[in-house]
């Protein structure tokens, strides 16, 4: 078969044939190239934003849930706490974290993603799924602990809140570090870094208050 191919190749008029094809194929190649360019233009925005299973989207969804619990606990401490320093920290936590939930939900809207993911909790983070215990992400309080905090009175509110909140923040910092290791999107880096710093500062402040609370 190669024999005949070579034979035909030599037999063909080298000048006429290929040049005619050259023009036709050039036109088609240009058309295909334009189409591909157009498609690339269409695709580019969705390729530039995080996808449904990306670490950024997973972080935004899971951290929103994580924050929601912090807001609930801090609101209880703000309302029922007896120590003014605790109440001030709790107030800051409510304001900051509810705002951050809004920011993260807005990311998902901008990335055209649903607030509801299709992957298990923490799957976006390396080794993240192993950190989930009884469906709870790192540092989260159990439903029983939340109920107990709601039912607590007096200085028990402050104490219980401080204990739960330090644990909660440590888990939150771990998650923020998890996404920082995976992303270079400026808005995610900026917020995750801020969470890490602020929550560490709040842990320090809560520990200072804790040390002064009497039995």
């Amino acid at each position, binding site marked *: 078969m190669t024999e005949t191919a070579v034979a035909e190749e030599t037999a063909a008029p080298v000048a006429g044939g290929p040049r005619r094809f050259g023009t036709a194929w050039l036109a088609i190649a240009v058309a295909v190239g334009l189409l591909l360019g157009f498609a690339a233009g269409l695709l580019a925005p969705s390729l530039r934003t995080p996808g449904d299973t990306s670490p950024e989207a997973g972080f935004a969804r899971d951290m929103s849930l994580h924050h929601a619990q912090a807001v609930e606990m801090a609101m209880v401490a703000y309302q029922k706490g007896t120590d003014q320093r605790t109440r001030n920290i709790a107030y800051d936590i409510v304001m900051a974290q509810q705002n951050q939930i809004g920011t993260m939900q807005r990311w998902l809207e901008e990335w055209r993603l649903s607030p*509801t993911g299709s992957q298990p909790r923490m799957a976006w983070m390396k080794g993240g799924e192993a950190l989930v215990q009884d469906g709870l992400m790192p540092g989260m309080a159990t439903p029983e602990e939340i109920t107990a905090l709601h039912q607590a009175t007096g200085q028990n509110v402050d104490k219980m809140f401080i204990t739960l909140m330090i644990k909660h923040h440590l888990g939150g910092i771990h998650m923020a570090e998890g996404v920082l290791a995976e992303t270079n999107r400026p808005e995610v880096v900026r917020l995750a870094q801020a969470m890490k710093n602020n929550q560490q500062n709040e842990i320090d402040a809560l520990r200072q208050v804790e040390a002064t609370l009497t039995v």
Partner: protein
Amino acid sequence: MSISTPQGGGNRRSPSAVSTGSPAKKAAAGGKPGTKSAGTKATGAKPGAAKTATSGKGGGPRRPIAPVKVGQGRNWGPIALFVAVGVVAALIIGYGAYYVYKGSESWEDRAAGINGLINYRETRPDLMKGGQHQQGTIKYEMSPPAVGPHNPTWQRCLGNVYNAPIASEHAVHSLEHGAVWVTYRPDLPADQVEKLAAKVRGNDFMLMSPYEGLDKPISLQAWGYQLKVDNANDGRIDEFIKALRQNASAEPGVACSTGDYVTATGTTPRDMSQSQPGTGG
């Protein structure tokens, strides 16, 4: 191109060489089956195929015919190649465009694609406004209610799985916040109840409770939307949640778990016309 063309041309041209030989094959194969059974038809065809193969190999000596085929071979080889490339490119473009289209589909459109979805936003736009707080028992025109006036207090909806019926007046308020309320007929098998609970437990903007007198085993509610299904394995359940959870909210940004909510079961709504101690949340 000058390097690839002889190869591609040579390979692509071979079918045309076979096709010119195929009438002979057909004739050879067609001649024999007339006299023999179907079983021998296959064996009868083999010599024919072998014949074309040998005639292809022996194409060298039959050079007089070759120049006639030269033009056709030159034409179809690269054309087939480029058509193949073009088809692949078109598939890539098509897939990409479809992906972009699907990705940019709004949650409303995704919801509208759910088979059997009841859309009260279209049928009862008057109920959509939200914020209509009302004390006491409220008579709803749908069961379970999916939109309408509701109690000023909402049912806690951060993944709460209630194992007894709750007051619709509270649950509808949760829907307004963006929650999906999963309800099931009390006779739903326990394994299916657990399957539903696994979708709800611990997830924000989700709550679940049994509902007496449900006309289907399972009913899902979001603000202005409803879907009734027979089985917890129905794939539309996840579609409903993914499309509508939080998205269907009439009060975006309002929480499920912070504020003066109720966690009590029982179908009598809390009456706040007298001051009562709240949850402290």
